């Protein structure tokens, strides 16, 4: 049962930022990247990247593990899945309505044509 809860709040708040989304997208292609590898494409400094990673970690979207001097970052997909489920349910709500709207408008169009307009 997926409720709108605090976890979703944290997930959406974490996903609002484009840099954090870019980090997640990168991890999707290359799970287990090092922090320095993740930071490379961005114009911002390493401490700023670390802050973004903290937010993602707090939201449960990534996990970090340290081996020697290298910190490895991995995706943790569950909170994302919950967020998508929530949005998908909302999408179904509107989707069903738009289908009905289309059917209704198409009926009206047929009527208008019959009247020769």
């Amino acid at each position, binding site marked *: 049962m997926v409720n709108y809860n605090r976890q979703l*709040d944290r997930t959406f708040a974490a996903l609002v930022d484009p840099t954090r989304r870019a980090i997640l997208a990168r991890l999707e292609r290359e799970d287990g990247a090092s922090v320095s590898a993740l930071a490379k494409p961005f114009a911002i400094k390493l401490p700023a990247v670390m802050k973004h990673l903290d937010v993602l970690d707090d939201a449960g979207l990534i996990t970090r593990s340290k081996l020697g001097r290298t910190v490895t970052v991995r995706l943790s997909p569950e909170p994302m899945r919950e967020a998508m489920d*929530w949005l998908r*349910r909302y999408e179904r709500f509107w989707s*069903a309505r*738009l289908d009905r*709207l289309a059917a209704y408008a198409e009926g*009206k*169009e047929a009527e*208008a044509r019959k009247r020769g307009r």
Partner: protein
Amino acid sequence: MNSLTLVRRIAARPSIVFDALTTPEGIACWWGPDGGPVLLAETDLRVGGRFRVRFRMLDGSEHESSGEYREVARPKRLAMSWRWLGGDDSGESLVEIDLRAIAEGTELTFTHSRLHDEETRRSHEEGWNGALDKLERHFLASSNGDRHDQA
């Protein structure tokens, strides 16, 4: 991320689609879930004017949403604030609908955004919980008749 966009191609001219979206008569015909009636539909179609729709779900629960028209440009564009009515204030989101004339009729682009504004976060939480629980029950109850689409 916290918004939803759906696109539909409809075999009807934009003015007809626009009227279906904005007249009480039109809304009454498509707004409710399959088999559940629209109990009330009111529209004051001008910028700053309000709309209100009340409908009953298949499980007997009733829901009401209302808002204020922000942009009214027949037959091209409609924007309105959106709010679920309930015991709790569920916060405000934004619905935008663009209608583009195409050879077959109309391409409708529907966007529901600001589903998660930081400012209204707490109030959303309360309101959506109840509304979505009921929605989920509805979807579970009617999942056999549900239409899946690729939008």
